[in-house]
């Protein structure tokens, strides 16, 4: 059986059948993502982040006691194709819903999935209050610095110089104000026990982010207080750049301001 084939003008290795003499180390779709493609843009970082989160939940063995609360944004597409229980919130309001859920189901693993427009624009007070309160939930922020779903406008986390639909020449402090570094802000609050910022622009960062998510969920399981993982994601559509340029754009422009790393609780 030939291991090669002709595609167009090139001879390449076949990639259409599983090898007999090998072990599967990573599968197509994480178990918890239902059959059916999502329709997010090519090169979008959000599916990568969501995959990390659900695989982490599966690793914890918490699938049958997880309740996730979704905000409103492009990622809302995942609210109805995950095999996890989902409660849909209004834009910005997931932390208060998650609070009610956790108070009634203290043994459940309760998390929110929100974008930066959702969490840092509309819902800023909600997440800050939940953090200050030390609410035992895990809030996950998918931060791409734009309102993806409505066309890519500037949000409260858009960094200076970042391209968005209404700042194509870059966010300007005098005209557009400064970004809110939400991860750093939350890390300064007493009730926040674990705060970290990861990214999904390369495999190394994906692996690092996975460890942050595990630490955050662990914080919740131990009842130690509010846990928060901010995940920088690519949005080539909202940034008006090519998909191949997005990982570097994230590293050079976004991560320069929203710095990757564990911001609080790093001793776990």
């Amino acid at each position: 059986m030939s291991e090669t084939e002709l595609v167009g003008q090139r001879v390449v290795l076949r990639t259409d059948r599983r090898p007999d003499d090998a072990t599967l180390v990573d599968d197509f779709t994480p178990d918890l993502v239902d059959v059916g493609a999502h329709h997010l843009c090519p090169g979008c970082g959000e599916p990568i982040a969501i995959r990390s989160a659900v695989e982490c939940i599966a690793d914890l063995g918490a699938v049958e006691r997880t309740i996730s609360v979704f905000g409103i944004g492009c990622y809302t597409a995942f609210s109805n194709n995950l095999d996890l229980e989902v409660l849909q919130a209004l834009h910005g309001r997931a932390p208060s819903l998650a609070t009610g859920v956790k108070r009634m189901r203290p043994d459940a693993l309760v998390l929110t999935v929100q974008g930066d427009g959702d969490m840092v624009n509309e819902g800023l007070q909600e997440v800050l209050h939940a953090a200050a309160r030390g609410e035992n939930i895990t809030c996950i922020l998918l931060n791409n610095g734009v309102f993806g779903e409505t066309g890519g406008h500037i949000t409260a986390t858009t960094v200076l110089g970042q391209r968005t639909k209404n700042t194509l020449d870059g966010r300007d402090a005098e005209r557009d104000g400064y970004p809110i570094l939400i991860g750093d802000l939350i890390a300064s609050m007493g009730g926040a026990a674990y705060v970290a910022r990861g990214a999904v622009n390369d495999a190394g960062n994906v692996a690092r982010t996975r460890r942050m998510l595990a630490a955050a969920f662990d914080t919740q399981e131990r009842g130690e207080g509010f846990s928060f993982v901010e995940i920088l994601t690519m949005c080539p559509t909202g940034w008006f750049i090519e998909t191949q340029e997005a990982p570097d754009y994230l590293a050079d422009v976004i991560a320069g301001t929203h710095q990757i790393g564990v911001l609080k609780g790093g001793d776990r």
Partner: protein
Amino acid sequence: MARRLMEGSEAIAEAMVAAGCRFFAGYPMTPFTEILERMAEFLPPADGVCMNAESELEAIGMAWGAAATGARAATGSTGQGLALMQESISEMCTARIPLVVINMGRGQGDYFQATRGGGHGDYRTPVLAPSTVAEAVELVPLAFELADTWRNPVLIYGDYYLGHTSQAVETPEMVEGAVAKPWALDGTSGGSGHAKLLSSLGEAKQRDGVGYDLAEHLERAGVATLEMAAGVEPRCDVGHCDDADLVVVAFGTIGRFVRWVVKELRSEGHRVGYVRPITLFPFPADAVRQAAVGARSVAVYENNLGQMIDDVRLSLLGSCPVEFIGGLSMDSSGFGVGPEIDAPKIRARILAELERVETT
């Protein structure tokens, strides 16, 4: 059953806990604050949770999350706070999640807010308007039952008087919620291939590339809404209308005063009756129409510029003339303890209208 002198807020809170409410969140605001204080006192011993939310938006959000797990949950405020909660109320209607919302109003100016709603979309909320502490204690378990049965928020519209006057009431009975909630979230359906979704956007998880279909979901929610509107029994208190020349319609605290005044006028031989709607939605249109049969006129007394009068007119559809004899009566604090809310003054207005009607 023991009877105790209880202040309205205390009685309402006790009734909520007796009705199985196990989660309450609120933000202090007059004249609602005492309900929050009492729930903070009564819920923990009952294994419930009461939270002082950092804002009204968060209060209803927390109650929404608690209700999503199947618990009987409630929140409340006064008009301004209810104004902040409108988006959440309407969204919970589309998501079909039960909730009880207590508006301890300042006067009666929130009638439109309660019955029409200031939220988005084509939603309805049943509204119950108690006029006494005893009636409030009766209506609280009904509110939770309606909310659970129809999977919809239900409002209780009270006011400063209700919250801050005392009446001898029987200790509320413990009630078990009987409506099953297979839609409630507890995590256990995760990984089953059919994990639950509780959402205002849809009820089904995606299969094979088909995402949310809002057209289909809103249509289904609409059917449920109309079923609820038709299925909730309108309630009304009617008295002395059989041979009345004038029927006076009033709700809540004002309704209590009007009923007392009408009884007094009747005992003096005046041909006057009253109708006191208890469900403001669904409005007891049939009862109002029935009560006005044979009357020369219907008068509406409410402590506002005229809101319920629209529903009275819609009930009568021109079969009887309708006059507004109410008006805004407010105190300097703005809490609604107005100087016109006084039996002799109400009596004078009704008598004047009766004379006008009988001599025309």
